[in-house]
């Protein structure tokens, strides 16, 4: 019996050798890569608007940490092309499994930004309804959500729904065992899930070179039989095009797909981090020059898809979005302390009821 691996079967799994790109740093269109299509104009315009709003949201959230309104905020500044494309590639019936750094994506998905920030404000763990929004709680342990995404995809497949699941993960997360187990399970089950790696070059302080010796993280797909692609993560047109193709691949019953986007975390890991301890200014400057927002803006203007009024309108929308967020986040919340006993089990155990009464008595004593 032959055990020789078909070279063609391997080639079909491998990503392009260079990241897929439609638009260069200056905003000029480059020769379109074979097999991929420029997304529709309306979608590109919507993406631009959400990137502007998303960046304004991100700046506002960072400001809210300084005012003590958020416990912490992990910025995704510089990753807006990934954040927005990851969501616009999905339909309403599709599921998203995000990480803690993907708040901008949830905003672009249409979630209430205050509910998105509940986790980081700290009045509960997850503020939105995962069932109604089809967005899983933002995951803080690394890579665990990728398995849940695979399970959800398998559930959709079994129920005969044509929904797809998008799992976000970072470069550091690809070192976790759950990432590898998820790729393996998804491939064996042919689950309709897209694994979207936002390679922003740092896992807190640890650079990619210390994270992985793979030629690119997208090459992690081939070992599991998962086809993969790599894409310029600061080129919205490319990310949206590649992710849309990946989603279509999954939706058509051909199983999972892995996409690695090369991007850069322009800010520190969180407001509590000091990035100057592990990376130099030159590097940050180089990446700021590759900012995805002006790149898309120049490209759209070049194609006549964006006017001054459009740009101004997006900017204004961002400002009012931030003002609304600011006002609502500056209102004090008074969480119901007794609620901590409510969602441990479907029905509280006798012991939890006792403890609830104990806390209630303590609170009453404080009031009187």
């Amino acid at each position, binding site marked *: 019996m032959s055990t020789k691996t078909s070279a063609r079967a391997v080639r079909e799994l491998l990503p392009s050798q260079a990241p897929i790109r439609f638009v260069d740093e200056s905003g000029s269109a480059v020769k379109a890569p074979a097999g991929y299509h420029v997304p529709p104009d309306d979608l590109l315009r919507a993406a631009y608007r959400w990137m502007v709003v998303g960046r304004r949201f991100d700046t506002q959230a960072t400001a809210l940490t300084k005012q003590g309104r958020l416990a912490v905020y992990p910025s995704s500044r510089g990753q807006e092309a990934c954040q927005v494309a990851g969501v616009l590639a999905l339909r309403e019936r599709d599921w998203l499994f995000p990480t803690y750094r993907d708040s901008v994506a949830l905003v672009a998905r249409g979630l209430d930004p205050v509910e998105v920030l509940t986790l980081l404000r700290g009045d509960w*763990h997850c503020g939105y309804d995962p069932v109604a929004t089809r967005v899983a709680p933002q995951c803080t342990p690394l890579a665990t959500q990728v398995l*849940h995404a695979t399970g959800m995809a398998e559930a959709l497949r079994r129920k005969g729904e044509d929904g797809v699941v998008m799992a976000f993960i970072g470069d550091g997360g690809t070192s976790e065992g759950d990432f590898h187990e998820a790729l393996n399970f998804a491939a064996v089950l042919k689950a309709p899930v897209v694994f979207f790696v936002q390679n922003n070059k740092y896992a807190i302080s640890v650079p990619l070179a210390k994270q992985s010796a793979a030629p690119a993280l997208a090459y992690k797909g081939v070992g599991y039989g998962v086809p993969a692609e790599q894409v310029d993560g600061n080129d919205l047109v490319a990310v949206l095009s590649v992710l849309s193709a990946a989603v279509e691949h999954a939706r058509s019953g051909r199983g999972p797909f892995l996409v690695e986007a090369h991007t850069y975390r322009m800010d520190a890991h969180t407001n509590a981090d000091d990035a100057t301890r592990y990376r130099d200014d030159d590097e940050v400057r180089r990446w700021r020059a590759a900012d995805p927002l002006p790149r898309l803006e120049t490209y759209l203007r070049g194609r006549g898809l964006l006017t001054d009024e459009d740009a101004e309108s997006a900017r204004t929308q961002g400002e009012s979005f931030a003002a609304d967020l600011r006002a609502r986040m500056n209102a004090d919340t008074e969480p119901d302390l007794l609620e901590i006993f409510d969602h441990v089990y479907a029905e509280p155990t006798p012991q939890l009821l006792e403890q609830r009464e104990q806390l209630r008595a303590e609170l009453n004593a404080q009031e009187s």
Partner: protein
Amino acid sequence: MPTVSMAQALNTALRDALRDDERVLVFGEDVGPLGGVFRITDGLTRDFGEERCFDTPLAESGIVGLAVGMAMGGFRPVVEMQFDAFAYPAFEQIASHVAKLRNRTRGRLSLPMVIRVPYAGGIGGVEHHCDSSEAYYAHTPGLKVVTPATVEDAYWLLRDAIADPDPVVFLEPKKLYWAKAEAALERRAAAPFGRAAIRRPGRDATLVAYGPSVPVALEAASAAAEEGLDLEVVDLRTIVPFDDETVVESVRRTGRCVVVQEAQGFAGVGAEIAARVQERCFHSLAAPVLRVAGFDIPYPPPMLEHAHLPGVDRVLDAVDRLQFDDRPDVRHLTRGAA
């Protein structure tokens, strides 16, 4: 009544759950055509098809993480961890997600899933095959932790666990898999989920046990009866939820209590039970609450395990120390004495 083994009762419970609820799925390592290394899933793939009972890749975190997503998607997964110690790769999924998803989402998502774990020793298993891992799970809020000691409970507790809206870690005492009893599984006589059962009524002292230590406690009670001591045996059935009421009522009546567990004693479930009994029954107690447990060692090799496992003699020794002759146990008074 037919004679049934615990393994058969568990198999029947899975079979009946698969038949009654199309959302129920069984998966794990070797659970398909092989029927599991202990044959608990025997014939399920044949009778319900690979869509309902299937083998997965060999990765425990993957199995549990997949089950989380499938439960979020409306299914009721019943997954098998092949052995107690092989479940540890799944611990992050269990502690951070299985146990917490309801809480994290403010009750908007629940995870009706069961993680079956063959556990504990007494079967001559080599290392990493005999751990008593119940304390890890019982210490994790959000999980229910169940362990049957009888054939009938194996069936009904598993049915209850699968029907439960919360995630359940279902610990199956390996050494009882082949224990047989006459049981009519279709007629429920088992206590409700969450309630302990008094397996043997008695007046002089209460032995609190669960899972593999229940038969040991019953045997000890029989031996003690020959010496004129009337011991009550309480089988917890569910470690979480914990049935304070039944335990406390029994100890207040008997005035003496020994907790029997196979797991190592330090920071174990028995320690929790002893503390709870002491807190609630202090004025009814005629003697300190004692624990009989495994030693605080990694589970020993097969030829040495009999020295580790709490047996009837060790239980009876503890009962002897319950101050029936009205003298305090010198071991509680003399530093360094045996």
